[in-house]
């Protein structure tokens, strides 16, 4: 039955239609827009590759923003994924009140990009905020988190990290798939809990680590709410992620053509990085289930 090509196609048909209609058309349109100058009020004017030319040659803010974005992604993604993995690992033990902890740890993700999260975050990282109070208790000079261009990005990174819930849920799932007998074998081999984690758990869930890394990278490149609500891109554009720049160009400066061009550059970067990750995954992602896929 599963060899029936027509039947299979019939099932994906809605998807194909949906993609064509709801995704591909806007895709193409935005791509077309990126070759125009369009300010919403007046019809778009075809200007060829000018937007792209300007973007790569005359736009220091793009470079700055790209740099910030890259740094953000490079920091936030491993942090979120790492933290999610760590917590999932801890939660994987049989513990009293595990359901409570699971829900508690997912809570920030439910909060999403709400005002509450923004207000709170500004509070935590304010000069006299909780973070600095804790730091000063530890004998560390308070840091002007939101004002110092070297630290401000960290508030955004930490917010991103804090909402690690969905990555955690996926990890929890994966961890439960690691056969307990491997841990027992390792225990008999004399591996400590830490060694078991790094030498058994981590290698075995690389497919999920990989999956999460890709998904979170895609997310991180599109991160908007955090910097928009907390720092508004500042100070000195130190948290001016590309998505913010695209937003400003498109909806504040009414440069929709330019915004579209920026988007497509971002798309190319994410796509390129994903492709690279997929290729590199051959070397570090371990698919244990491959042999059994017949059954």
């Amino acid at each position, binding site marked *: 039955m599963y060899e029936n090509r027509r039947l299979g196609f019939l099932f994906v048909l809605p998807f194909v239609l949906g993609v064509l209609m709801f995704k591909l058309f806007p895709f193409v349109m935005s791509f077309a827009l990126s070759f125009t100058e369009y300010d919403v009020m007046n019809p778009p004017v075809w200007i060829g590759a000018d937007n792209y030319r300007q973007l790569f040659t005359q736009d220091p803010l793009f470079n700055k923003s790209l740099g910030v974005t890259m740094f953000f992604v490079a920091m936030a993604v491993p942090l979120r994924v790492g933290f999610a993995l760590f917590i999932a690992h801890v939660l994987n033990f049989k513990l009293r009140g595990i359901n409570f902890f699971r829900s508690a740890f997912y809570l920030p993700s439910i909060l999403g990009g709400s005002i509450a999260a923004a207000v709170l975050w500004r509070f935590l990282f304010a000069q006299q905020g909780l973070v600095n109070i804790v730091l000063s208790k530890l004998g560390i000079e308070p840091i002007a988190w939101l004002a110092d261009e070297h630290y401000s990005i960290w508030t955004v990174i930490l917010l991103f990290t804090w909402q690690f819930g969905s990555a955690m849920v996926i990890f929890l799932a994966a961890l439960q798939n690691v*056969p307990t*007998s491997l841990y027992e074998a390792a225990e008999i081999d004399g591996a400590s809990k830490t*060694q078991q984690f790094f030498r058994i758990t981590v290698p075995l869930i690389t497919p999920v680590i990989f999956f999460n890394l890709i998904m979170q990278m895609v997310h991180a490149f599109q991160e908007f709410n955090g910097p928009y609500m907390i720092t508004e891109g500042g100070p000195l554009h130190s948290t001016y992620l590309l998505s913010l720049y695209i937003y400003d160009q498109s909806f504040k400066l009414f440069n929709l053509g330019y915004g579209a061009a920026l988007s497509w550059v971002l798309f190319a970067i994410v796509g390129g990085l994903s492709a690279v990750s997929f290729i590199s995954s051959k070397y570090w992602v371990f698919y244990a289930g491959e042999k059994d896929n017949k059954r």
Partner: protein
Amino acid sequence: MAQVHLQRIEKVYPNGFKAVHGVDLDVREGEFMVFVGPSGCAKSTLLRMIAGLESISGGELRIGGSVVNNLAPKQRGIAMVFQNYALYPHMKVYDNLAFGLRLSGTPKAEVDARVRDAARLLEMDHLLERYPKQLSGGQAQRVAVGRAIVKKPGVFLFDEPLSNLDAKLRASMRVRLTELHRTLREQGRASTAIYVTHDQVEAMTMGERICVLKDGTIQQVDVPTALYERPANAFVAGFIGSPEMNIRPAQVAVSEQGAAMAVGNVPLALPAGHAQRLAAWVGRGLRFGLRPEHIVADLSAPGVDQLTDLVRVDGTIRFTEHMGSEVFIHFDLGDVPFTCRASAERLGDVLHKRRGERHRFGFQMGFSHAFEPEGDGRNLLL
């Protein structure tokens, strides 16, 4: 150095289930001990307590003389082979073998030497660079054993290591493991082995001594032949041997011909020795036991005449199973089913009989057993 001593060992699982009830057992140094029993009888639990994977709720466990109740697995000097092998799928065979040694900080050169040594012993030098998923079942099994060997443990623990293999492979790996154990012992390496299985064939062929378990208690510990010939109770008698011993409800009756075992209303005359020991049971119900090979199918075969205590009775054929060299004949005595095991060459005319036809069998009553009717059924003739 590596004897294993269990004293009143108990296990209560966190959910309150008591899996092991005060087990006492001595496994001698270098001995190959088999734990056998039906599923759920706590074989694995016991083994895992010895390994240190499961906490001990009561009693004392000694390995090599010292109490290890609360030691971590790695401090117990044991190695374990798991049912599903539990090979690290992300490591090559070489690294699977070397993992434990490396963790304990063994020098590189020695790790290499020991890994290669084990590989040679198990004839798997050519597999060292493969990943587990590139191995066949039998090869994976050997790697699992290899991983245990390199550690040069005092005690090997095996938890049904062959049950995932197919019949043919299982038979050959069985021989291989037995030979390996003897080789190691001859080389003077300490190699006490405790082997868990639910397959009585494995138990019989591999075990130097066998410990039969049921519901977390030991039924009998002895060498294979003793278990087979002198089972302590009906449970052991039924569990050991294939096809199963015929164990049927019966009554001891005394008539002018002497004492007889009445099964399905058919009286089977008992030898004097048996009758004497069963005197107390006359007129009472008990369980009668006779192994299939002690029922003769072809009464005209040479040598049958010389058999003592042979009782001839007619049975109704149900069907026969052909095993090549031998045949299992299923028949009813009265309405009690019996199985007879006969050499394929000495079948006589039984083969040509059809379902429902009558055939005369010979019961070698000298080999018969009698068990208490209730509970595990103590062997009344011991």
